[in-house]
């Protein structure tokens, strides 16, 4: 693995040197392509196997417009982040890479390892909207291009359970509460909750918070500019009680929910007969296993409902392209990625959600993807998963920080004051050091 990378890095280094020497002039408008841009660029991302083939199709699409640019893609797999960090340290990073952690992008920017791409800002805003473009911005400078998204603002439901209870997918929080009560009255457990190590609960909280407190507060909370003891956090937790506060509303009650792992919480809803009507989980839920209910006719999805007329908001994650080395070829490729055309081939084969607003959602292969991916494109507000934006000791560690706080919250939902104080002291520790 490492050896292969070394050979690859050497080749890339040599070729990039050549490319820099003979790069053509950049004439700005690249959407229609140009034969003048030449050179070779290397790209790294986590995609391997089938995903790698899909991305190769994207590259082929690019090559139709820019026949004289060679794009070499290498998969970093799950080790992408350490691979890139090592490569940066060794001075041999690829030209472009797609990374999943905004924190890593900030680290690279702090090391001056990545180059700004402000020239693409307008194209990004036009295609993705401002809040998606901002995912790749650091202090007003554009360093990243958020190209492939994952939508975490989704709720999955078992169609037979909804039919038996005679309810429709809700659009507002109040309707969701009504659906919950009606489903319960029909004798069906409303929610399947898998606390797992805690992160699925942070996703639920983030979705409530961005709707109840608004995106500005969300940003402030993400940067720890307001404390976790803020009233807005307490209000969001109070709303969250509607889902995890009542033991009878969850499969097996609170005790069982705390022990349930995420894939099992999906299986509770996606298998016939469903043990629960709904599970609040991102668009990756169906990929967790094999289920006896059919897609769409058996299980389906609706967008996380709005709270007090909040604008359509999506909390998500995804892959952000960053540029380690400037070249006309790299710029041309990045510019191509801002266009809806770049997303078409992969979107039509499935397993891909584009945050691009100008992509026709009818291109997605089925109704479920149109809902989950479409919401990503249509979102007026997009924010990256808040816990992923935290220092990992606070936002990403099992048994600590947010994961632990939300596990405690499910077990003890009435102790909002205690929980928020615990969050705040953990956050202060993590941000202080």
């Amino acid at each position, binding site marked *: 693995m490492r050896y292969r990378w070394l050979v690859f890095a050497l080749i890339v280094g040599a070729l990039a040197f050549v490319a820099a020497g003979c790069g053509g002039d950049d004439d700005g408008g690249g959407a229609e392509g140009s034969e003048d841009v030449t050179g070779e660029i290397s790209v790294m991302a986590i995609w391997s196997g089938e995903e790698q083939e899909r991305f190769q199709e994207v590259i082929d699409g690019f090559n139709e417009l820019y026949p004289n640019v060679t794009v070499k893609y290498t998969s970093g797999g799950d080790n992408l982040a350490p691979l890139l960090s090592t490569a940066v340290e060794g001075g041999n990073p690829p030209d472009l890479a797609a990374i999943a952690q905004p924190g890593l992008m900030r680290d690279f920017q702090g090391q001056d390892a990545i180059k700004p791409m402000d020239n693409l800002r307008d194209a990004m805003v036009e295609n993705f909207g401002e809040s998606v473009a901002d995912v790749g911005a650091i202090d007003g400078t554009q360093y990243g291009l958020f190209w492939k998204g994952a939508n975490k603002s989704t709720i999955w439901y078992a169609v037979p359970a909804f039919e038996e*209870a005679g309810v429709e997918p809700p659009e507002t929080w109040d309707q969701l509460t009504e659906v919950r009560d009606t489903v*319960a*009255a*029909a*004798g069906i457990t409303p929610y399947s909750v898998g606390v797992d190590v805690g992160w699925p609960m942070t996703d639920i909280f983030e979705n409530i918070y961005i709707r109840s407190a608004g995106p500005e507060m969300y940003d402030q909370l993400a940067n720890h500019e307001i404390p976790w003891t803020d009233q807005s956090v307490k209000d969001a937790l109070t709303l969250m009680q509607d889902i995890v506060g009542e033991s009878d509303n969850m499969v*097996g*009650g609170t005790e*069982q929910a705390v022990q349930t792992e995420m894939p099992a919480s999906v299986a509770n809803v996606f298998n016939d007969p469903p043990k629960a009507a709904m599970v609040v989980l991102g668009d990756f839920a169906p990929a967790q296993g094999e289920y006896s209910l059919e897609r769409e006719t058996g299980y389906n999805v609706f967008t996380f409902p709005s709270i007090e007329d909040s604008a359509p908001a999506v909390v998500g994650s995804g892959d952000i392209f960053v540029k380690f080395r400037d070249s006309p070829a790299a710029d041309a490729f990045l510019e191509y990625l801002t266009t809806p055309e770049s997303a078409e081939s992969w979107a039509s084969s499935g397993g891909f959600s584009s945050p691009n607003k100008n992509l026709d959602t009818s291109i997605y292969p089925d109704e479920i993807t149109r809902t989950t991916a479409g919401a990503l494109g249509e979102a007026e507000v997009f924010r990256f998963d808040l816990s992923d934006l935290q220092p990992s000791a606070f936002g990403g560690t099992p*048994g600590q920080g947010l994961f632990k706080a939300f596990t405690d919250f499910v077990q003890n939902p009435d102790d909002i004051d205690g929980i928020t104080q615990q969050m705040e002291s953990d956050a202060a520790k993590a941000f202080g050091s």
Partner: protein
Amino acid sequence: MSESVPTVEAPRRGLPPTDGEPGFFQKYGMPIIFLAPTLVLLGVWVVYPTIRTIIRSFYDRDGDEFIGLDNYETLFTDDTLVTAIKNNFLWLLIVPAFVTAIGLVFAVLLERIRFSVAFKVVVFMPMAISLFAAGVIWRLMYEKDPSQGTVNAAIAVVKDAVSPSGVLSAAQPSTDDLQGGPAGGLVLEKPLAAGDVAQLGLTGIRSSDVPADAVQAVVPEALAGGITGVVWRDFKPGGGTPGEVEKEELGLPGITVELRGEGGGTVVETQTEPDGTFAFEGIEAGLYQAAIGPDTFSEPYAGVSWLGASLITPAIMMAYIWVWAGFAMVVIAAGLAAIPRDLLEAARTDGATEWQVFRRVTVPLLAPVLTVVFVTMLIYVLKVFDIVISIAPGSVQDDANVIALAMWRTSFGGVNDLGLGAAIAVFLFLLVIPILVLNVRRFRREM
């Protein structure tokens, strides 16, 4: 000793010694050549990492700032780590003793039964499974839901035989007219007199749980000199209006309805019809209350939360003992076979009871073997890791924590603090040393 160091001639490779004194190479060459591979391997994989870990434990998370004993201070102040240390001492206190005792009992009893080989194989079998796999098996067996977890399923069978669950265990009253809870049953609050019609609406009943002979619910006619009423599933798709018998809402047949007098005692009871109606005829004047008894609502056995925070450590210990009891049994049985029979016979001839023979003869003679098992288990238990991580769900790993698991979680499992992780490793190392010394001494004595 300093002046008596013998001067050794420089080795002359390949040449025979010039005089009778063997050269350095002749004296030490062969041992060195034979020991070298082992020494190199030990050096690379044991000595160097040990030293490096000890040094690393004095540095901070990133490894570039010397912070003295700070990591060790954290080790004894951080809640999670203190829990891990406490748990580990619990393991030390309980598990080796249990494993040795159970192994002893099995070994002694096995001497007296037929098919002892078959039994031995069964008890020893868990040793053939990796601890991690054993953990996965027990994790599934400990599931709380009796329909998934074997342990709770077994308890549920017994429990349901003693007190069967009610027909409508999950049912809830549809309106506030019905008061009470599962413990005392549901009571219609409004007092009834002859000629009244009672409506007892219930929700929270899954349509598949409604008896098959149920038909559309109807509100019965009032009855002169009697009380009539209906028990029905007050739900239709979409919800319907609570408290009202509507189309598509089914009666609940076979429900026992009690009529309670003013004192609270049951006067008379009856069963509902397929349309949910019931009637009490010819009752005396006065006020009554209609109720559905608690038996109807008694919940099915929900299962013990083995994997919950409070039971997780005993639950894991149980699994661990299950794995190791076979090992203890086999070792002790071997020791038992070596005991001279005539000593036991002599004791029996002298009139000792079986218990006295066991207590005064067998156990003392077995003491060395028991010590081996006990000390081995002490060391293993100190290092226990894989079975804990495989049984404990993520949410309770803090409560199930042990030192080795804490070390792994701190170093690699998200915290990524290699300094603190190294400190935990050193602490664990220090704990194992006394037991190791004890063991080595004992080996020496025996040799």
